[in-house]
């Protein structure tokens, strides 16, 4: 860098302050729950369950929030990709059932990764078609988007019924992923640990992409002002489609993890989890990946703690979290600046 530019970094600058407050909510919440739960090992189990669930919801929701933030498209059919991803595991489990029952970590993990790969491939392709056929004609009209993507969801769910049948299908966890690690009094389910690992990895990868690459720069700029990005000479439409496809693939990944978590497949599972996804992206702030991450963990932790402490309230705890967050920050935890 030249002298002039080098001077820029050395001069005394006001430090850019990251918004720590929402991030702090997570550990604060977890620690606050400890005395309420009372028992350390129970708390660890609940916290881990919450983190795992949070990661999976993050995977399912991140694509949607990015698509909305960047393209201003609301895709109520996002649940399609979750369901598809989940059912895609059947494609792999059919021929490779042996890998699931084998008592080998390598084979089991390989199986999981293969399921993920197939699911993401399938949902990426379906995502591209969905964008072209269903979404693109209704760019610009939120009302039509809501209606049309809802329609897509209905049709897709029925198609799944037609192809795979209407009854729930059980999905067995691979052998070595069953059970739990036991450390003293504390029980940590193996699959949940894997889920947390995968979730963190994906989050880190997304942050790297968004903050260190030119494409990430384009996405962040596009979320704020797509028109200006075009005026700078970038064909942002192509980027849009890629982001939509990536979002669908992420949902597919989330679907696979969710399928193994629930160990059952139902055609409506994508739709069922959509309410949670919507709550999470509202809480996080539409368009913010970081917000989605924090929001998912918060909502999942609350659901687990409340499920233990006051089971009757568990199902409405999400709404309460959403209401509280919106009262504090009406645009969500990390609102994204928009033109």
């Amino acid at each position, binding site marked *: 860098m030249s002298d002039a530019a080098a001077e820029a970094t050395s001069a005394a600058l006001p430090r850019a302050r990251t918004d720590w407050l929402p991030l702090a909510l997570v550990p604060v919440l977890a620690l606050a729950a400890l005395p309420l739960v009372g028992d350390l090992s129970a708390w660890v189990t609940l916290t881990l369950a919450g983190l795992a669930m949070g990661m999976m919801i993050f995977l399912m929701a991140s694509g949607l929030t990015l698509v909305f933030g960047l393209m201003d498209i609301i895709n109520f059919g996002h649940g399609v990709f979750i369901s598809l991803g989940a059912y895609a595991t059947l494609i792999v489990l059919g021929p490779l059932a042996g890998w699931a029952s084998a008592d080998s970590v390598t084979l089991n993990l390989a199986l999981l990764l293969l399921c993920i790969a197939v699911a993401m491939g399938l949902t990426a392709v379906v995502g591209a078609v969905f964008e072209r056929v269903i979404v693109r004609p209704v760019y610009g009209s939120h*009302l039509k988007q809501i*209606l049309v993507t809802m329609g897509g969801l*209905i*049709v897709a769910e029925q198609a799944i019924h037609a192809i795979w049948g209407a009854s729930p299908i059980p999905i067995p966890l691979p052998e070595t992923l069953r059970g739990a690690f036991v450390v003293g009094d504390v029980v940590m389910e193996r699959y949940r640990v894997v889920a947390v690992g995968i979730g963190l990895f994906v989050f880190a990868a997304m942050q790297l992409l968004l903050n260190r690459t030119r494409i990430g720069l384009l996405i962040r700029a596009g979320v704020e002002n797509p028109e200006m990005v075009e005026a700078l000479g970038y064909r942002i439409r192509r980027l849009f489609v890629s982001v939509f496809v990536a979002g669908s693939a992420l949902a597919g990944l989330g679907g696979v993890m969710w399928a193994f978590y629930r160990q059952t497949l139902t055609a409506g599972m994508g739709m069922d989890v959509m309410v949670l996804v*919507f709550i999470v992206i509202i809480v996080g702030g539409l368009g913010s990946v970081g917000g989605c991450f924090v929001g998912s963990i918060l909502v999942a932790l609350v659901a687990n703690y409340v499920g233990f402490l006051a089971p*009757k309230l568990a199902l*409405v705890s999400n709404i309460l979290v959403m209401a509280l967050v919106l009262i504090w920050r009406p645009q969500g935890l990390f609102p994204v600046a928009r033109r």
Partner: protein
Amino acid sequence: MRSTLLPPAGHDETRQRRGPVAWLLSSDPPRSWILSLVLLGIVACLVAAPFLFPGSQPLGTAAKICVFILLVASYDLLLGYTGIVSFAHTMFFGIGGYGIAIALERFGPSWESVAIGMVAALALSALLAAAIGLLSLRVRAIFFSMITLAVASAAAVLASQMSSVTGGEDGLSFQLPAELRPAFRPLAEPLFGITVNGRILAYYLIVAVTAVVFLLLLRIVNSPFGRVLQAIRENEFRAEALGYRVVAYRTVASVISALAATIAGGLMALWLRYNGPDTTLSFSIMIDILLMVVIGGMGTLYGAILGATLFVLAQSYLQVLMGAASEALAGIPLLPELVHPDRWLLWLGILFILSVYAFPGGIVGHLRKDPRP
């Protein structure tokens, strides 16, 4: 060339020669010969249903059509005229149903109970609709839709959990007031060959209430208030800049829409003599409403009549056709599953998507060829 804020008041010419029909329809006629004929046909069949189609199943279908006409029309007020996408509509439908059910179950089968139940339900709906309106209509439209989705699912959960009050998953069964029971015979002699009993009276109660509330809604959307709603739907910022308090108008529209849906819920419960989460609160009903309002024609109110009729008839009778087709196609991979009667929603969903793209005005808009804004 400046456009005016409000869409042109419909058919000022007809104001001069305002006959009884125009007054009844609030100067908002079907405006298409085919449409008028179809609507007349539907209305005639509904009014004469007990005599034209004897039997409990056809009568049940007719009653369901009436209830859904009202429910979908109330949703059209919100979606088609005010431009709000809410997924919480079934909540108000459910409140109406539960209001009647709880009142009749607790306080005995009398007209007083019906009145208490209905009034309580209307009050609760009005309160909730106002709360949702005032709190959520300030946020972006997307937020609002998602929030209503969350609220509706919470309502469904609450209803199944508060089993002491609502009967939980099983719902509530109850007795109707004496005049509405099948054993009641107001006329000693059969009329047109049909024995008139309390069931038929119940049916005509539903038809009458539906007609009155529908015409009221028609009056409301054609009033100055209704026109401001449409202006807000077209261009919210402009309306706000011209001094109309958008949130206030939307909230009032929400409340009116919720009240009509509540009445529909009450009627449904009265007919079924039962109310449960699956008959009123389920999300699939919400989807059905969306299908009906879009296929019928958003922003027309008449679309509700067409959409509800088409949908309920298809639900009851198309499935039979599909069943036959499915058997005929047995042996071919995948096709029999696609036309299986359980998959009728698949085809309706496709029709729905096509309607949004190709027929934004729905059937009514297509018949009219110049869809109302």
